[in-house]
């Protein structure tokens, strides 16, 4: 491997040598397994006929392209740009391409109907580069996680926890790190799957899911990012005497959420009928005249393998001890 360059980028199946060594030394005949399952999770997983085979990790450090020549980048103040009556000063950023905007775009014409100093044409547009970056980073980490599990001969991975951190590396473009850690489980009597399933559900939840006739098919991820370049103050709606809604900004956030949920639902369609336990993270980065709203959500797609109407009705019980 070229130490300067590292492994070729984007090769999701490439595991570091240390990982391969760890997996080979610990796994298989006579080897012991590691897991980060709690005792209760372990017994749940064993109860439904699986056993842990090892703890697996997948990660990726990813640089998000520095885009948007204009200062709208990451919500920095766009003074001097946003007021010129241009398209908000986002330059060749994000969804912009010579053929126009791809993805979501909505314009907010100056409410005074004017172009020129002091007036601005506001835009909300989907930041496709940002979305692609997160999607790619997620895909790489997940592929590595699955490769590790496959190396252990596992059927799936439960209890996957992910952390997405901003690495604050002193480069000009932002760098994120995505880590995923989980426990690979297998059913020794069964043939291997093409692709092991992944799930962020705990061992108990995994067991309950199987009991109710559903099986986790895979982790799914959705992200929506919408940049909002403020137009004239007039984009506020004066709906009441007590204040005004910043409609353009609200719509940007709403759209980011919509995009994220639509993506996760669309992707999960390949895997199963439902996505459970979706974890939602919303962030809004704001500058003086522009902002970026992004939402990412992660969940486990589940597939039904039998009708789950035949689940016994759970008992209702009253705890006599104090909960706290």
């Amino acid at each position, binding site marked *: 491997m070229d130490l300067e360059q590292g492994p070729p980028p984007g090769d999701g199946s490439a595991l570091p040598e240390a990982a391969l060594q760890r997996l080979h030394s610990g796994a298989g*005949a006579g080897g012991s397994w590691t897991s980060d399952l*709690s005792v*209760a999770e372990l017994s749940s997983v*064993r*109860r*439904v*006929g699986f056993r842990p085979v090892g703890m697996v990790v997948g990660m990726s450090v990813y640089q998000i392209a520095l885009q948007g020549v204009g200062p709208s980048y990451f919500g920095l103040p766009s003074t001097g740009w946003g007021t010129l009556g241009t398209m908000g000063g986002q330059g060749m950023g994000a969804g912009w391409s010579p053929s126009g905007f791809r993805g979501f775009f909505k314009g907010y014409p100056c409410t005074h109907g004017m172009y020129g100093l002091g007036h601005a044409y506001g835009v909300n547009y989907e930041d496709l580069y940002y979305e692609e970056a997160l999607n790619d980073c997620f895909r790489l980490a997940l592929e590595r996680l699955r490769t590790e599990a496959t190396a252990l*001969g596992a059927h799936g991975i439960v209890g996957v*926890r992910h952390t997405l951190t901003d690495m604050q590396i002193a480069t000009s473009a932002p760098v994120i790190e995505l880590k995923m850690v989980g426990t690979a489980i297998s059913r*020794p*009597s069964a*043939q291997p*799957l093409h692709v092991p399933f992944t799930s962020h559900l705990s061992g108990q939840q995994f067991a*309950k*899911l*199987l*009991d109710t006739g559903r*099986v986790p*098919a895979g982790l799914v991820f959705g992200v929506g990012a919408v940049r909002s370049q403020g137009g004239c103050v007039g984009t*506020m709606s004066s*709906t*009441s*005497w*007590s*204040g005004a*809604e*910043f409609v353009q900004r*609200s719509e940007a956030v*709403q759209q980011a959420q*919509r995009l994220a*949920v*639509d993506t996760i639902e*669309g992707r*999960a*369609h*390949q895997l*199963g*009928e439902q*996505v*459970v*336990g*979706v974890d*939602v993270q*919303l962030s*809004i980065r*704001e500058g003086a005249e522009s902002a970026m709203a992004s939402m990412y959500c992660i969940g486990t*797609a589940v*597939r*039904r*393998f*039998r*009708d789950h109407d035949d*689940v016994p*009705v*759970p008992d*209702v*019980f*009253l705890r*006599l*001890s104090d909960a706290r």
Partner: protein
Amino acid sequence: MSPKAPGRQGPDDADHGDPPAGGGRAEPTAGAGPSPSNGPGAGAQPKAAGAQPKAPDKPKAPAEARSVDADRALDALRSRPAQRDGGSARHGSVSSDLSVDEAILIHQAGWEPRGLVTGVCIFRPYAFGSWAPMSQSTELTAMSGAMHEARTIATKRLRAQAARVGGEGVVGVRLSVESSAREFRFSAVGTAVTERAGAGRGSEKRGSSEVFTSDLSGKDFALLNAAGYRVLGLVMGVCVYHVARQSALTWMKNQTQNVELTLITTALYDSRELAMGRMQDEALGLGATGVVGVKVEERTHTWGSHIIEFLAIGTAVSTIDGKHRSVSPQLAVELEDLDQAVDPHALRGDR
């Protein structure tokens, strides 16, 4: 790396052993029960069975029904998912932020999730009417109105989205607010649910076409249903109050005394009552029998210590047929001392 040599499994199996189940029902491992009633798995099972001439394992462990489930589950994963049925116009699957427990309970209560929904409102209150003289305890009515209205807009959007995905209501709504110097960002996230077709509840069909919202968890929602109540919607009352500063003289006089600070007591008391009263009024307006899960929250946002927002929020409910149904729970005493119970998450070092 190739999927793995099947041979490696042999010795591994030795220490495995399914929990020795009593039944002793021998199961063929691969094609476990390809019953035609199977959902997605059904189509694939012949393929799965055919494609895998299973190495003759050790004599099959007596498999429990659960272990059979495990095999069926894995078989289901070998196939492509079944196409969606049920006439849904959506092209994706249904997302929800319900936990597995909640999903099961909601299902048993006769409901099904329709999708994750959100509502947002970014609001900039006007300064006018949002200040008060330092010595005066008074409600900042404009601010109260703004805070209430913004939340209402956020939940309205939440309901609109829920209606779009065919939901009759939204459960597990989490309302949150972030504040900066000039604006408030209100957001609401929840899972849209609808009554399941064929859940046998036709007679109890909801009268209104309004989408309800509730901050109750899936568990509470199911329990509420079982107890014969219907959720009418989230109700809230807001009061933003300016608490007067004591005069310097009073402060001096009181320094050496044990004394109740009546000014502050009254102010806080008043504003709390106002918020709760407004919430009750909203509930009465909906024709509720009661409000459950009321929380009264105090926040100062970015206003400094003398301006406080009181928010009273709860779920308005009414009985379905005028009666409370008793759920007759079993009594259970936990032998575990909960204070000292092991928290698995703590062991795992997360959450």
